């Protein structure tokens, strides 16, 4: 799928000395990795520390990444190991299982609980972002909303979307872009006030 090819290209550029390419990957996966780590580490500040360490470790380990697996799969493993080592170093019990069974799945926190662990400001921000995105989605023209839903939720390629929506691929590309830009536009004021600096 297209996603994997993007990651592969960015990884290869990073392996050839382009740090910015790696930063793009950080930008893409920071939230996902954060969610993963917060299943083991409660304190959001610590989650950030461990996430940072995991990304740096991943950067240093880049020469050994050969594309056998997807980049995120590899990053995910580094994340798990970093979290585990962190917990052990802190003297906390690292969760252990010798065999997966259904009970384990229930012990994992539902993603929604993540909000309770944030600072009030961060939690408010998360809610505002979600609300803004939802609101904007509802106001989008139907074909833009469908296109971006098929892409982001259903993970379909432009070609498959073109088939389903019965339109040229170029139209799909433009619809997805316009949907993204519209939502991004509404988000920008929110993000500007929260970020001290852009990178």
């Amino acid at each position, binding site marked *: 799928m297209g996603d994997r090819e993007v990651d592969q290209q960015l990884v290869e550029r990073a392996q050839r000395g382009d740090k910015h390419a790696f930063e793009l990957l950080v930008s893409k996966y920071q939230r*996902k990795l954060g969610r993963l780590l917060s299943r083991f580490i409660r304190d959001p500040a610590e989650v950030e520390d461990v996430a940072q360490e995991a990304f740096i470790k991943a950067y*240093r380990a880049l020469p050994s990444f*050969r594309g056998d697996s997807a980049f995120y799969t590899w990053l995910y493993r580094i994340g798990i190991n970093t979290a585990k080592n962190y917990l052990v170093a802190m003297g906390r019990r690292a969760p252990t299982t010798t065999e997966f069974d259904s009970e384990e799945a229930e012990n994992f926190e539902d993603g929604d609980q993540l909000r309770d662990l944030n600072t009030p400001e961060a939690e408010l921000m998360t809610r505002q972002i979600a609300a803004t995105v939802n609101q904007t989605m509802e106001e989008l023209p139907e074909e833009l909303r469908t296109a971006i839903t098929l892409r982001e939720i259903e993970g*379909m390629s*432009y070609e498959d979307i073109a088939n389903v929506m019965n339109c040229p691929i170029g139209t799909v590309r433009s619809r997805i872009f316009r949907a993204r830009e519209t939502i991004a536009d509404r988000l920008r004021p929110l993000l500007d006030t929260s970020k001290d600096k852009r990178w």
Partner: protein
Amino acid sequence: MERISAFMDGELEDHDAAAQVRRLKEDPELRAAWETYHLVGDAMRGEAGYPSGLAARISAKLAAEPTVLAPSPRMHSRNVRRVALSAAASIGGVALVAWLALFDNPFVPQQNLAVNQAPMGTQTQLAATPANGSVNDYLLAHQQFSPSTAMQGVASYVRTVSGQNPEQR
């Protein structure tokens, strides 16, 4: 900006994609768009999180890191597309299984079970979900004949709808 949108979906030709990476490096506005567009996708999937200084902090740390240089990757970016095994390689069916057996992780995401070098030197890559319209139809059509459906009923169809495009999540 539209190119960045297409690029992040992996829908640009290789040469075009390479150009985008360069543009992203040079233009902060484009980088901000990359970040925001990904936030949009995450928010749609209920993973909004919150903007932390994480990316910026990592950026700063990276600047201090010695630049990593890897030897030329075994796979050129051109070859990220999957390459079919040659007919000769198919005789090495047993060798293939033996190769897979070298990956010693007990519970391994299937993406890791990649064949990096098939016998005869051709390359095959186990990619993530196909997300191809026809293949989805095939998966659905196949499931009715699977003995697992006889034993579990429609519950076995969870295979066809689970984890599609796992990297999105």
